[in-house]
């Protein structure tokens, strides 16, 4: 679906991409990782036709620069930093839906699934929303249309655990028909979402590896934690994951999204000394059905 052939990008004398060649097919969920300045954002901008470059970029054999509309109508993009748009939420959805020939109601619905009621905020300027609300809206615009290529820069960074789970489920519904390119500084943030890892360093691909695709994107785990003693800092952290306590803050129960397990265990590791017991088991999802195009 996507071909990068010997892509070179220079800013003045600085060579930011040094002959990158990649091929990404439908069904590939790629983590594009690397430190700051590795060339991830530049590569994404070349893919979106926003940067001119040497070499050849194609999406389904089309040049994103010359056939912008055809290529970008297949692409759902979620940037890392939400743009400071002053237009109201309703206007932004109408504008995006109209450009993408999509039904704005689907975008409203996807935002609703993620826990953001766009109808209630339709007159609110986008820039005045919270970080999480902005992220949910941008995801809703990207997923609430017929996108075959999802390009996302740290897409779940600002989402609460429940919204993350819905987001992963929405991705799961797209995974067979779409290719995904998820950019992140840290592999552990996106590891369970992907089946391929591409690491960049100083404008070159230094690792391109397929990874075991064992975690269902839509899966959910039930978790029960027992503590040696109640701890306020732990209580605050675990409540953010949607857990509740049934026994004087010493026993906690809740659900975590399957692809979030590594991240969750990372959080728990900070409180390892407090843990007296832990159960983690696959659980059937009982929430609302995610609505995807």
């Amino acid at each position, binding site marked *: 679906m996507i071909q990068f052939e010997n892509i070179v990008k220079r800013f003045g004398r600085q060579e930011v991409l040094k002959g990158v060649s990649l091929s990404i097919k439908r069904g590939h969920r790629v983590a594009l990782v690397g430190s700051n300045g590795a060339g991830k954002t530049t590569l994404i901008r070349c893919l979106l036709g*926003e940067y001119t470059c040497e070499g050849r970029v194609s999406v389904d054999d089309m040049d994103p620069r010359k056939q912008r*509309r055809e290529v970008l109508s297949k*692409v759902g993009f979620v940037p890392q930093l939400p*743009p400071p748009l002053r237009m109201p939420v309703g206007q932004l959805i109408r504008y995006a839906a109209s450009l993408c020939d999509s039904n704005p109601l689907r975008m409203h619905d996807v935002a609703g699934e993620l826990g953001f009621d766009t109808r209630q905020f339709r007159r609110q300027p986008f820039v005045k929303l919270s970080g999480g609300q902005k992220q949910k809206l941008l995801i809703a615009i990207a997923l609430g249309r017929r996108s075959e290529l999802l390009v996302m820069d740290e897409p779940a960074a600002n989402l609460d655990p429940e919204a993350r789970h819905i987001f992963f489920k929405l991705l799961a519904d797209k995974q067979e028909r779409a290719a995904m390119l998820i950019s992140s500084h840290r592999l552990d943030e996106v590891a369970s979402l992907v089946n391929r890892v591409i690491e960049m360093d100083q404008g070159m691909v230094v690792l391109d590896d397929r990874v075991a695709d064992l975690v269902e994107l839509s899966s959910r785990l039930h978790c029960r934690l027992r503590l040696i003693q109640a701890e306020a800092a732990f209580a605050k952290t675990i409540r953010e994951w949607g857990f509740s306590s049934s026994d004087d803050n010493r026993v906690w129960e809740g659900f975590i999204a399957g692809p979030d397990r590594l991240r969750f265990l990372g959080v728990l590791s900070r409180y390892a000394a407090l843990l007296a017991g832990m159960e983690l088991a696959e659980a059937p999802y009982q929430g609302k059905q995610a609505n995807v195009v």
Partner: protein
Amino acid sequence: MHHLWLTAYADIIESLRARWFLVYSTVFGGLIVILFAFGLAESRVMGFTGLSRLLITYIQLSMAMLPIFVLITTVRSVAGDREAGVFEYLLSLPITLRDWFWGRVFGRFFVVFLPVLLAMLGAAAWGAWGLDARVPWDLLLYYTALLIALAWCFLGIGMLISTLARSADVAQGAAFVVWLILLLFLDLILLGVLIQEHLPPESAVAIALVNPMQVFRTASMMLFDPQLVLLGPTAYVILDNFGQSGYIAYAIVYPILLGTLAAGVGFLHFKRSDLP
């Protein structure tokens, strides 16, 4: 074409909520209020009184303020949007660069012209109903056309600077330099250069005819000073070559063509360069 107007509309909505628009509108609206408050409509200068007198003052002040306001607000907001990531996101949506660029130009034109026009219409309404003065419709129409031409001209130049400069600060500096150069080549300074450097008069007149600010200034003078006495020797060349109506037509058509040319060059550069 539908996407072009959609982008223009989105840009209008964006701009109406921006702080620069509030300042911009307050300045032009406030100007009219100040002119009325100081009793300008009741004063008499060179035979002009009432609303005609007020409009003449307004147009002279607009000539000084509008170009720099349009230039600075355009380059700050367009180059600022690029820096802030607005271009990165909105240009990831399936829209042609032509629709995007010209949509922004038309949307921005509406926004920069609206407060100027509303202030002038507000003055006319205030004068007609509040002071029971006669509304000089011919003057109002002529000045509206001149202001359209001037706003479009500097918007086009502003869009060109925005596409060439890679940062908001550079764009703002460049816009200021452009305005300063045009200001330096207004007739009084031209006259000084002409005398000092022994330039042929035709060169000085040519420079005056190329400078959109001078063209606007001369055209706005023409209604209350048809022989262009205030302008000095340049007036002979202008009136001999153009005639009064010819120059008025030139003063409207030339800035529009110049603005379109500048925006067109800006678009060609935008299309071939890195977008965000």
